[in-house]
Structure formats: structure tokens, C-alpha cells
């Protein structure tokens, strides 16, 4: 096989996939583009073990139950403490202040926390493990990269709702990354994790029944971020009035309170008592629908808006190809988006069949999560310790499902390049752990099929130890850029 065919196969794996594994370059070198298209038509199944994971609603109820039990334990402990204190003080002949009687001591809180540990954490770790191992097991991993992209595009944060963070991706995002954008959008915006994350649960119309009785009202967050981040994009022409009207439309989109309903607590629910009655005008169009259909209608129109096509095409192309993608590539992808009513599989196909998407040399800096997964794949490791793995991602500044804001993690070079020192430390630690079983020369020959520069070969050859050679290889430009 010619070396240029191998170079293109390596590019396909780094740029559109999760990075080369042993044998993967040879496997697709005869037709790298065809291999990417074939994966879209026949995406690898998610690990069967996922069936044993709790649904988002179940996870949410489990955590809510644990919180309630912990609270009860703390209250009992605090009462006992207060009683003891009271007797002590009575014995000493002093009066007790009210604070001392009702305050919950740190000891009581700590004891309760130990007695009832947070079940959200193990759920998060198991979700993280399966997701990571799916990326490690994929032949190419193009579909998996699309899942990562869309999960970040429609991000929520485990810092706010840890219990649902993994299930959200599995339920709302994963099944829809190769389908119509409108369906993905609807699934993301009406998922309880999103409604929780963007503060929609208690948002109520000023003229809704609950709004009148409780003198409370709107929260604009979900409406604004849906317009700004998820669909049209910032500065695309919507106004503050559109945000308010859309927020009114979305009132009532909430979840079943977990304490009230052991069967359905934590699931999506439309509460008509919170919903602002009447028609709403969004982007010049009046929506007369009743109830939840009003929001669905607005979302469907947003999905079909030309600004959305451009916004999505730009973000996809920036994520896969270049920080500043070729405008012709973005145009092609946006056109497919419009022509196919947002068929995301067709948009992805347009991207990988466009010549602009294959520019060389690879210039885009991998994000920490992409770099780490490609390093672990190259070492032919397929199973991970979720605690250690997610700890590593956190140290690199990209903790899984914990973006700093609803905008998600950035993916441009300027945001990440100053983290090189930290990457070196992580590569160094990883190399230390695997140096007994994995050899850098083997990775160069069997995984990268020789697709590295003479400079890298020389640096590896002269390294003072196997570990150092591996660290240098993982840190090389060939490994960091795609």
C-alpha cells in the first residue's frame, strides 16, 4: 500500500474518528472516505451494558431519595446533639440561645453524609466508563465523535445535575445524531436534564394560574440559550422580545417532582398551570397552539431556519476540520442542511466527501478529551478505570459533562494551547503506567504505520527511557493535531 494512502487513512482516523488503533490504518487505507460513509450507514451499537444503567428519571429519583434520607439522618443527629447540649447547659445553669438549639452542626452533617453516600457519583462514573469504552472500541469512531460534538453543543452540566448527566446523552443525543436536526433539538430541549440545567422548571407565565396565585413569573434562560447557542446563533436577528415570547412559550415545560411520584418522578411533564395562556409572537410569527404543542412548533421552525443551518454547519466544520473552516465547506454543509430539512447524516456525508475537509497537514489542535482517547487507543487499551480517567480529563481542563457554561467547551487552539505543560504531565504519567507493556517503536510501526516525521523517530530513538519515548510520541505534533 502506498504511503500517501496510509497518510490519508491516518488523517481520516485522527480528524473524523477517535484516532488510530492497531491495524485500523491498514483496514481503511484502500478507501478512507468510503469507510467513513459506511460507518454512518452502519454505526456501531452502544455497549449492551448500557441496558443496566438507570434512566435519567430513575437516577434523579435515586439521588433525591438519598438526599432526603441524608437530611433525615442529619436532623436526628442534630436533635440529639441539641438535647445533650441543653442538659449540659441546664446543669451549668445557663440559658440556651435559639441558634444553638436549631443549628445543624458540622459533625451531624458529616455523619449523615457518610451514612448516606451520594448515589449520583457511581452512576456518573459508570456512564463515563461505558462512554469511554465505546470510543476505545470503535473501529473508526466517527459516529462517536458526532455524539461528542452534539453532546457538547446541547450541553448540560454534571455540576448542576450529576445524576442525569450520562443518561441525558444516552437518551436525548445518542439515538439522534444521524437523524433530523428537529428531532434532536426537541429531544434535547424537553429533556428534564436540560430543563433543570437552564432553569426552566419553575418558570411560569405571569398570567398562568400558578403565576397569578404565586406572583411569580418567567425565567428567560432556556429560551435565550436555545436561540443563541442551540439554533440560530448569536446576533442572528432575534430580539429581547423574541426571547421573552419564547420563554413564555416554554413555561410549563418541567418535570414530575421526584418526591411525589415513585414511578414517574424526574420524567418530563407539561404543567398547564405554569403555562402562559394565549398566542405568542416569535420571530414575527404568531403561535396560537395550546400547551406543549406551542413550544414544539417554535422549535420545529427554529430547526428549519436558515440561520440555524449556517450556525450548525459552521460549528460542525470548526469542530472537525479547522478553527476557521473553509467558507465553501460551510456553504456546502449548510446547503445540504437546508435541502434535506436538517438530515444530520447527510450533512456529515457532505462534510467527508468535500475536498476542503481533507486539507493537509493536519493543523487543528485536538481537545484534551480527543487527545487522551487517541493516546489510549494507540496503546491498545480498551478498558478504563472511570475514576482515574475522568480525573485526568478534569486535570486537563475538560472534565466530562462539566462544561464551564451552556456554550460548552471551546474547541479552538487558543483556548487549549497553553495547557501543553499539563498534557505533558499527563502523557508522562500514562507512559509510566504502560511502559512495561507498550513500546513506542511498535506504536509507530503497527498503529501509525510509519506516518510520523523523521524528527519524531529520531527523538524517540534517542530517548533516555521507554517511558520518555512514549511521552514524546504522545506529545508529538502528529498526535496532537488532526
Amino acid at each position: 500500500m502506498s504511503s500517501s494512502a496510509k497518510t490519508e487513512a491516518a488523517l481520516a482516523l485522527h480528524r473524523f474518528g477517535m484516532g488510530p488503533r492497531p491495524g485500523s490504518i491498514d483496514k481503511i487505507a484502500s478507501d478512507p472516505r468510503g469507510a467513513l460513509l459506511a460507518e454512518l450507514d452502519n454505526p456501531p451499537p452502544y455497549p449492551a451494558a448500557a441496558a443496566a444503567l438507570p434512566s435519567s428519571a430513575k437516577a434523579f429519583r435515586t439521588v433525591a431519595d438519598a438526599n432526603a434520607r441524608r437530611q433525615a439522618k442529619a436532623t436526628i443527629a442534630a436533635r440529639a446533639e441539641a438535647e445533650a447540649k441543653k442538659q449540659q447547659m441546664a446543669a451549668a445553669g445557663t440559658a440556651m440561645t435559639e441558634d444553638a438549639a436549631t443549628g445543624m452542626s458540622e459533625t451531624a452533617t458529616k455523619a449523615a453524609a457518610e451514612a448516606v453516600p451520594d448515589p449520583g457519583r457511581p452512576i456518573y462514573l459508570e456512564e463515563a466508563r461505558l462512554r469511554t469504552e465505546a470510543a476505545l472500541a470503535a473501529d473508526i469512531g466517527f459516529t462517536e465523535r458526532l455524539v461528542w460534538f452534539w453532546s457538547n453543543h446541547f450541553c448540560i452540566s454534571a455540576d448542576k445535575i450529576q445524576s442525569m448527566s450520562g443518561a441525558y446523552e444516552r437518551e436525548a443525543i445518542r439515538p439522534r445524531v444521524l437523524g433530523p436536526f428537529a428531532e434532536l433539538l426537541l429531544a434535547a430541549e424537553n429533556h428534564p436534564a436540560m430543563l433543570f440545567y437552564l432553569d426552566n422548571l419553575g418558570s411560569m407565565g405571569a398570567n398562568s394560574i400558578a403565576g397569578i396565585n404565586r406572583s411569580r413569573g418567567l425565567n428567560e434562560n432556556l429560551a435565550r440559550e436555545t436561540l443563541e447557542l442551540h439554533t440560530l446563533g448569536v446576533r442572528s436577528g432575534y430580539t429581547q422580545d423574541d426571547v421573552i415570547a419564547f420563554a413564555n412559550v416554554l413555561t410549563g415545560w418541567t418535570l414530575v417532582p421526584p418526591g411525589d411520584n415513585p414511578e414517574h418522578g424526574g420524567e418530563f411533564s407539561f404543567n398547564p398551570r405554569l403555562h402562559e395562556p394565549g398566542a405568542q409572537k416569535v420571530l414575527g410569527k404568531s403561535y396560537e397552539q395550546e400547551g406543549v404543542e406551542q413550544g414544539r412548533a417554535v422549535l420545529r421552525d427554529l430547526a428549519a431556519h436558515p440561520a440555524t443551518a449556517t450556525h450548525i454547519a459552521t460549528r460542525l466544520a470548526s469542530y472537525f476540520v479547522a478553527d476557521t473552516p473553509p467558507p465553501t465547506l460551510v456553504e456546502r454543509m449548510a446547503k445540504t442542511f437546508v435541502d434535506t430539512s436538517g438530515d444530520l447524516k447527510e450533512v456529515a456525508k457532505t462534510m467527508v466527501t468535500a475536498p476542503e475537509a481533507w486539507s493537509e497537514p493536519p493543523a487543528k489542535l485536538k481537545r484534551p478529551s480527543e487527545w487522551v482517547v487517541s493516546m489510549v487507543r494507540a496503546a491498545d487499551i480498551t478498558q478504563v478505570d472511570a475514576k482515574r480517567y475522568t480525573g485526568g480529563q478534569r486535570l486537563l481542563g475538560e472534565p466530562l459533562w462539566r462544561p464551564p457554561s451552556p456554550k460548552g467547551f471551546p474547541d479552538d487552539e487558543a483556548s487549549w494551547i497553553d495547557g501543553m505543560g499539563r498534557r505533558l504531565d499527563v502523557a508522562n504519567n500514562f507512559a509510566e503506567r504502560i511502559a512495561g507493556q507498550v513500546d513506542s517503536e511498535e506504536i509507530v510501526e503497527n498503529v501509525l504505520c510509519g506516518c510520523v516525521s523523521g524528527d519524531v523517530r529520531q527523538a524517540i530513538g534517542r530517548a533516555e527511557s521507554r517511558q520518555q519515548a512514549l511521552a514524546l510520541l504522545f506529545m508529538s505534533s502528529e498526535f496532537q493535531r488532526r
Partner: protein
Amino acid sequence: MSIAHSLSRRAVLIGSGALFAWTQLPRLARAEGRDPRMLVIVLRGALDGLGAVAPVGDPDWIGLRGERALQLDGKTPALPLDGFFALNPAMPNLHRLYKAQQAAIVHATATPYRERSHFDGQDVLESGLSRPGATDSGWLNRALLALETEGRVNPSGGRAFGVGAVTPLIVRGKAPVMSWVPQKLLPASDDTAARLLELYQHTDPKLAVALEGRIKLVALGGGMSADDPMADANPLVVPPVARLRSYFAEAAGTAARYLAKADGPRVGALGFVGWDTHINEGAAAGQLFNLLGALDGAIAAVETGMGEAWRETVVAVVTEFGRTARINGTLGTDHGTGTIAFLAGGALKGGRMIADWPGLKTEQLYEGRDLKPTTDLRAVLKGLLRDHLRVEERALAENVFPDSAAAATPIAGLVG
């Protein structure tokens, strides 16, 4: 964007509490026998200026916020400033500095940005441009470029440094910046780093520049890495409010200790997230109260960490925009416009409010909903850069804050 449980915020902070700094000595200031330090703290998420510094003397104040309005005789009484304004009770340190003429507050201020997107707002705040859009450098970095330097303060490193994995825009640009991340892993050896640097120099100059920053920082940081307070023994445990406070204090204190060193950097920036209080804002008790308390502790930590150098220090605390003047339907506030900036430091001519008060009646609010900005934040920052660091006024108007000459004349007399 808002985070309902402030208790679980630490993991977010880990990735974003960023200190960046620069190690050249400002030449003109040196010629005057001064050695000025400047630290900029960016509060990302939009701080509610009215919840932090309340216009208790405004007759419309109580009507606007009702029982959620901070008051001098409230359950947790606000701290009086000048008869008209009062400070959130979570900030006793800042209050003490204000009384000692070492702190000032700018109210009803904003950048030129008038929309309500966090990310565009932060772009304008940090880029120093008058509109959002593509930019690759921040105003602090360009201010450093404009400074005439008198050589490097540290012979081993010509760069600045920072905490955090993602470089904030405010310090991006041509003036070299180093980033510093809390150490937890065993770092790679100097030899491995040197070999990698050589490899990059032959194959990838951009990565070479990035790595070089790290190597020089290690040299500058010296013994600060091993038992650094920011190294986190168990980051996976959900922290209580006390840990939020200690994170802020430790990040700011670490920054100050670097800036205080005789051969350390002179200018730095640090970012804290979490100010987007859409739900249950809790100005007098709760979310915002806790955050302001943590910020107050951070300012105190800067004062302590600076030691003698506090005399020559200015700290500017800024945010992308304010929040709605009224409370929203979920007892929080939505994205707004006018807000405040805190200034502190021994070099400051403090003890005063800097405000051209616009009033709180509906017709006085911006678009009927937000505090109207009457002071351009750039005028404040330009005043500090000119009079404290001695950045030339022309450079300020042309390069640092382009197109700001007419709209934002530097405010004189902030320092000295």
C-alpha cells in the same frame, strides 16, 4: 447557566480560576521610583451590581426589589458607604478597605456592549473592542505590549503565567503569557520537557512557544508547586461553602504571592465563574451572598499575599454586564446592563463611590428593565492603566481600547 447549588461549584472553578501575568518591569513607572502591580479579576456570568452595592438612598429602591432589597436596617444590615450606597454585608474586608481609602466602587458602569449574551459580553469586556466578534487578543495583553519595558524582572523567564487550562481572552495576544495549572500530577522531568521542546522547535513552532511558557514558569515558581495550597487532595468531594471561599482565597492569594516577588510578574488576571444568578439569587443570604463573601476573602488574600507590595497594588474587579433591576419569576435576576466594578489596593485613591446615578424609576432604567449605564467601564480601566502603569494615552485610545477616545476619556485621579 446559573447553578442552583452553590455547594457543587468547585469543579467548575477548577477549570476557570485563571491567573495570568507578565514579567516585564514598566519602565516609565520605574523611572518615577515606583514598582506598580495590577491584578484584574474577571467575574464571569454577570454580577448583579444592585445586589452587591445597593442604592439605599434612592427612594425607588425598596419599591424595586421589595423584601429582597438590601437595607441599612435589614435583617443582615448592609454596610454604609457614603450615605446613598451601601455594601453587601458579605464584604466586611472591602468595607474596611473603603474606610481606609483603599477601595472604591464604580456604579452604573458597563462596557459598550448593549445586548445580553454572556459570551459576546465577555468578548467585549476582555477584548477591549467596542463590539463582539472575531478577535485574538485581549486589552490587558495589548496594554502590556504598549508599555515600554525595562528588561525582564526574572532572568529565567520572559513570560507571564497563569492558573487554569483554558487561556482567557483578556490576556491572549502577542505579549508572551505563561499559564500555570494547579499541580497534582507528578510533573514530567525537565529533561523530557527539554527534549520535547527541541522536537517542537523542528516540527511545530506554536507548540514550542506554548511549552516554553510552562518550562520557564516552573523555573519561576520554584518551590511553590509541591505543597501548593491549590493542589487539591480530593477534588471529587462536593465542597461546602467554606471550600468555595477557600478556593477563591487560595487562587487570589497565590496570584498575589507571585506578583509580590521581587523578581515576579507585575500584571496578572484571574477569573471566577458562577455569577449568573437566575434562580434564588440570595443577595442577603444564599448564592450571591456566598459568592461575594468568597470574593471579599479573595481581596483580603491579595492584600495579605502582597505584603509590602500592597502599597503599590491596584486590583480591578470587573464583569461582563449587570442583571435586571427587578427580581424575576424565580427569585433571581436575568441578564441586564449596568453594574459595578470594585477597585481596591494600597495605590488607590479610595474611600469613594464613582457614580453618575441614573435613578431607578422605570423610565430611568435601560429599556425599562436594567440599571442604565452612565460610566463607561473603559474610562475607568484606561485611567488605571495610564496613571498606575503609565501606558500612554494614545496607545490606550488606539490599541488597547480601540475607538474609545471620544466615548471613554480616562478617569483621572484614581491612584496616587
